[in-house]
């Protein structure tokens, strides 16, 4: 392999990307996309029906949308890119080449979006009276631009899971118009609005002073949420129906509720019911919703979207780009070569070029670093992925024969890409390391 790597021994590489990515999705969906829509809708209504109170709320929202999206939102967006360059260079490097022009267009849309946001925010006082309509139009343009940024980047995200025809044709347009792009984009559009309602409601509840205005806003929010739920469901179903079968079978497992299918159903169904109740409650009795309930729904929504992204990432296993590249950056078509010629002689940065009787540990560790750490750790907070808790009772021979058939026994695991000697070295290292660290942990506990 070609690049050096950085280790995150406890957190795990995947978690680093996940933290940044989930934060980004929450901020981007709730503030940039859903939030903009809610904000401009309020401003428009305030103007049309001559309710300056609504205008004030929209204005306040714009300040927070500006602050949050240009700090946490923008930086975590770039952050996904920064972190994948460090952690998944092969995958992001390939995606940038496949989607170069989409990404370049994204640059233009980003600059437009930010310019519109700045224009919108700084012209509240200037564009009043007859010019007000231009302020509203700027807001609408801003909402469209924000949505477009998602439309473009969703193509990349969807293609990682369902590259479709691209696998054969390698054509840009096949990659963009992949099977889950449109359904996931439409699904996310309404998720974004629902999430915005969930996150803005507690703040409106707490900080909007004028009661009639407050209830007016909350009522509208409820309507937005209800409509969003109605659209979310069919688009979500369409999305799911376009997933690869293998990926679909991993959903419950990926949610961490394997063997508890009933719980999985109950939790998802309850989430839906709670959202519905919230929407109807907001519409019918906005004055009666307790702040605590709205805050709870806000947190639960963040949890739900986070879980959705984690599941989406996990069901893609063993691939990072489906049918093209495994999660550890090894391409599907490279495996045979590495099994024949060896992985270490083909690796430039591991410091070990071959397995000898004297360097088993060193070679095994190098292989672990290159082929396992994209998802696994020795010790780590995710016990399912930490070897110290997974394989501490296994010996080297057992591990060796297990790794040999790993991808058959567990189809979400990539095949080991190396020679028999290399596999033995890895098994030896894992057997030692998983016990070694467990021993240390036990020692520390005393």
């Amino acid at each position, binding site marked *: 392999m070609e690049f050096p790597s950085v280790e995150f021994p406890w957190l795990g590489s995947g978690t680093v990307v996940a933290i940044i990515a989930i934060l980004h999705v929450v901020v981007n969906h709730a503030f940039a996309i859903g939030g903009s829509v809610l904000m401009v809708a309020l401003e428009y209504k305030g103007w049309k029906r001559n309710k300056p109170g609504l205008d004030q709320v929209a204005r306040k929202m714009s300040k927070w949308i500006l602050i949050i999206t240009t700090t946490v939102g923008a930086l975590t967006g770039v952050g996904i*890119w920064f972190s994948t360059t460090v952690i998944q260079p092969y995958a992001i490097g390939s995606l940038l080449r496949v989607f170069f022009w989409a990404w370049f267009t994204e640059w233009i849309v980003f600059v437009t979006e930010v310019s519109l946001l700045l224009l919108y925010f700084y012209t509240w006082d200037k564009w009043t009276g007859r010019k007000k309509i231009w302020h509203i139009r700027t807001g609408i343009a801003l909402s469209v631009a924000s949505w477009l940024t998602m439309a473009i980047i969703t193509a990349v995200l969807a293609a990682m899971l369902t590259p479709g025809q691209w696998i054969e044709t390698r054509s840009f347009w096949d990659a963009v118009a992949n099977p889950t792009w449109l359904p996931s984009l439409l699904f996310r559009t309404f998720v974004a609005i629902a999430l915005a309602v969930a996150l803005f409601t507690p703040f409106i509840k707490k900080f909007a002073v004028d009661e009639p205005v407050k209830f007016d806003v909350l009522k509208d929010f409820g309507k937005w949420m209800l409509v969003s739920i109605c659209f979310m469901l069919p688009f979500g179903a369409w999305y799911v129906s376009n997933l690869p079968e293998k990926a679909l079978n991993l959903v419950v497992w990926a949610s961490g509720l394997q063997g508890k299918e009933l719980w999985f159903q109950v939790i998802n169904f309850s989430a839906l019911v709670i959202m519905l109740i919230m929407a109807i409650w907001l519409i019918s009795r906005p004055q009666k919703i307790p702040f605590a309930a709205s805050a709870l729904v806000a947190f639960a929504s963040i949890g739900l979207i986070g879980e959705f992204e984690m599941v989406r990432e996990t069901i893609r296993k063993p691939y990072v780009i489906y049918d093209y590249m495994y999660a550890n950056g090894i391409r599907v078509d490279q495996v045979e070569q590495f099994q024949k010629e060896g992985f270490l002689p083909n690796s430039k940065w591991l410091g070990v070029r071959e397995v000898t009787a004297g360097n088993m540990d060193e070679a095994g560790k190098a292989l672990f670093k290159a082929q396992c750490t994209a998802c696994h750790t020795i010790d780590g907070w995710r016990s399912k992925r930490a070897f110290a808790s997974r394989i501490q009772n296994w010996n080297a021979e057992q591990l060796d024969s297990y790794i040999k058939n790993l991808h058959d026994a567990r189809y979400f695991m990539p095949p080991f890409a190396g020679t028999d000697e290399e596999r033995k070295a890895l098994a030896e290292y894992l057997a030692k390391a998983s016990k070694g660290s467990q021993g240390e942990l036990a020692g520390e506990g005393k």
Partner: protein
Amino acid sequence: MIEVLTAQSIPVPGELELAIPGDVGFFKVLFVVSFILHIVFVNLTVAGGILAVFNEWRGMRTGKEQYDRLARELSVQTSTHKSLAVVLGVAPLLIISVIYTRFFYVSTILVGKAWLMLIAIITIAFLLLYVYKFTWDRWMEKKGLHLFFGIGGTLLLLYVPLVFLTNISAMLQPELWVEGQSIFAASFHYPTVWQRYLHFLFATLAIMGLYLVLLGNRRSRRADHNAEDSRMLIDFGKRVAFLFTTLQVVAGPILFFSLKGQVRQGFLGGSALQTVLLSVALLLAIGLIVTLYLYKKKESVSLLRGALALLILVAGAMGWLRHEVRDAYLKPYQAAETIEPAAEKI
């Protein structure tokens, strides 16, 4: 045999399987242009922070409210510029990632943890600067605390270029690549980092100076303007612009002579294009210094226009120059495509 050893001891990656999706020459043009756009807004952001806290502090020390108003103006400007600086960076980052994957990815991973920390550091810097901007009136009686937020945000901003410069210096010198360095160790390990930093810092302030002059001129034409304040923007701006443009006479050569001999040679006659380019850039820069000096002595619209035109040309020439420097550094590695270790057996 020697070649094989070289390839082994310097682990330059091979190309990715997927081809670069377009003409590399065209991408390089896009790269230089989009980078200049990005860096100008970075300059305005960083300098805005520095000059805002400087003027607020001056205002606190002298008790002159005018300094405080200038500082406030700067804090608002910075807040806008920083948002554009970030999004404008997407194109150059995209292109450098695609056309220099083999070098840029390695150097990025080598400074990987510092690179990742930038996300948190820039976010915090921006949030601090928002506090700074939005509490200007509310914290009039708490000037110390207010200034603290400004200084905090600005110091964090000043750290950011160090990581970027270390990264792009490291990508040029595969022969120096080592794993496991801290960012500070790496910034001294690669020979041009701090020289680039100094050059960047002066450019930042110089560009901001001229920007303030232009802003002051625009303000003075507005009906509701405060004559005293727009006068101050112009006076302060032209002094800053002249001072830091002139200081580049020192910073430029320091950077130039820190370049690898072989690369430097290209600009000193080795390559006709590079030599002409450097000479033109230097002439333009001198022209800019003279124009700024004349403008400082006696303001006129034509001098200001001239200065702006020259600044744009200098920025263009410098942007192109640094690209030539990059390609000169990478030439030996790109010409002899490194040998895949597997090929040794053949």
